[in-house]
């Protein structure tokens, strides 16, 4: 095995990992604050892909503006979903299962609506970055490199926001103790809606970011939500650093696995490794006891 092939695998692993981390970060933020798994998350990712298809691919909007637009549009949709569907369900105690089923049903609704609105065929989104970079035998497209860099920037930005800004601190406070946060004067409902919007916006950005590389389809969210869920459990439910670490682990395992084995073998391997990690650390890599 040549080292350049390994380097290639590493770069692909980083790209996949950053993408998984972005989606999982949104999922884990929402779980942390609402205590529910947002099964519509994959559909937010899919909608981000379609925003890229129409606004970047067809209307010729700048790619970065398209990314921002996908976050804003889908983020707003998230705020609406939280307010009118999830909030009434989570406000009543012991309805976790109901809200879970509502989320799964909603995911189906979005997928079917996407088929009706956009057609069920796969679509291609043109590449936003042209060219190829060669460094001592390692070949990487500028597109993939840009995807990695943009993704990493977003992860860093989100962390700075959560750790350093007042709103970020408030989100963490609400996730840790809603009632105590209310006693400090926080409008818990507003912060919850905002967090839901941010989480959905992150999923949309990763869908839009990856669309030129993988293409888009109405059911592209289905596989991704499972993987994001896996990443969240692997990292520790509700843990932000856990989602980042979990995303990278899954990205690397998949990417390097594909250098040596067929895709189904890689899937078996991936899940076995994750089950093993969870047997050793039931709360996930960085989960709290």
């Amino acid at each position: 095995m040549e080292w350049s092939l390994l380097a290639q695998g590493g770069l692909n692993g980083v790209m996949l990992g950053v993408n998984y981390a972005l989606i999982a970060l949104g999922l884990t933020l929402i779980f942390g604050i609402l205590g529910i798994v947002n099964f519509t998350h994959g559909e937010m990712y899919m909608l981000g892909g379609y925003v890229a298809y129409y606004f970047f691919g067809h209307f010729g909007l700048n790619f970065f503006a398209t990314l921002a637009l996908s976050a804003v549009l889908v983020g707003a949709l998230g705020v609406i979903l939280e307010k009118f569907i999830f909030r009434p369900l989570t406000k009543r105690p012991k309805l976790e299962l109901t809200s879970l089923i509502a989320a799964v049903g909603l995911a189906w609704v979005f997928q079917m609506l996407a088929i009706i609105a956009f057609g069920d065929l796969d679509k291609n989104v043109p590449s936003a970055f042209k060219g190829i970079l060669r460094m001592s035998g390692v070949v990487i497209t500028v597109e993939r490199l840009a995807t990695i860099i943009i993704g990493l920037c977003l992860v860093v930005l989100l962390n700075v926001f959560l750790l350093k800004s007042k709103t970020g601190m408030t989100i963490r406070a609400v996730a840790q103790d809603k009632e105590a946060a209310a006693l400090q004067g926080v409008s818990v409902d507003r912060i919850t809606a905002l967090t839901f919007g941010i989480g959905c916006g992150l999923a949309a950005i990763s869908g839009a970011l990856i669309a030129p590389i993988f293409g888009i389809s109405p059911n592209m969210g289905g596989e991704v939500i499972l993987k994001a869920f896996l990443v969240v459990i692997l990292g520790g439910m509700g843990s932000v650093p856990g989602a980042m670490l979990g995303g990278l682990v899954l990205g690397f395992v998949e990417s390097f696995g594909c250098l040596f084995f067929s895709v189904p073998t890689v899937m078996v391997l991936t899940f076995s490794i994750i089950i093993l990690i969870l047997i050793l650390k039931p709360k996930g890599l960085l989960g709290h006891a």
Partner: protein
Amino acid sequence: MILDVKGVDVNYGKVAAVRNVSFSVSKGSIVALIGANGAGKSTILKTISGLEPCNAGEISFQGQRINGLSPQEIVKQGISHVPEGRRLFPEMTVGENLSMGAYLRKWGGDTKNDLDAIFEYFPVLKQRIRQKAGSLSGGEQQMVAIGRALMSSPKLLLLDEPSTGLSPIMSQTIAKIIRVINEKQVSILLVEQNANLALTIADSGYVLETGSVVLEGNAQQLLKDEAVKSAYLGI
């Protein structure tokens, strides 16, 4: 009167937790609310701070009705609640917990002065400022909880069992600080199971039994009252 509670009922579903409770806190005083487990003490505090709706009666603060307002609006008016069990944000640092207390205020000269005052009451917190709140000892956590509540610069402080789980010495320290805070024109409503401690520092007191006030009076009188002695002071 800074706080007036008149004929308040609070129900959890169909269960009545507080029935026709009336009491008041005069400006600048410490009022103790004592009673056994489940008497409804915490429920009363939660109703004052807007966490629980009241089903009947009226609560007024500085002559204005506050029941029905959101917790946010009640904090804005100048009531701060240190909940039972401290309820810090455990994964956040002491500094972050304290600044969450000033959530509705602009950070500036006034908040910095308040922070300095808190470090004066509890010097140990200054060394713990970057430590996660969840990693502190019980006594230190209670200090952070009181400090956080003071960061909103309240006129009335609601304290729910600040001495629970603390050593006798630590309880005394907290009691002393409560008096110091009170001397700075902050009125205090103190809920305690430790009736002795509460009545020692309070001006007046109310005894609560199964959701109703059964006894009220001057704190010194209550300390000498035979019924209070046998039921709550273990004498």
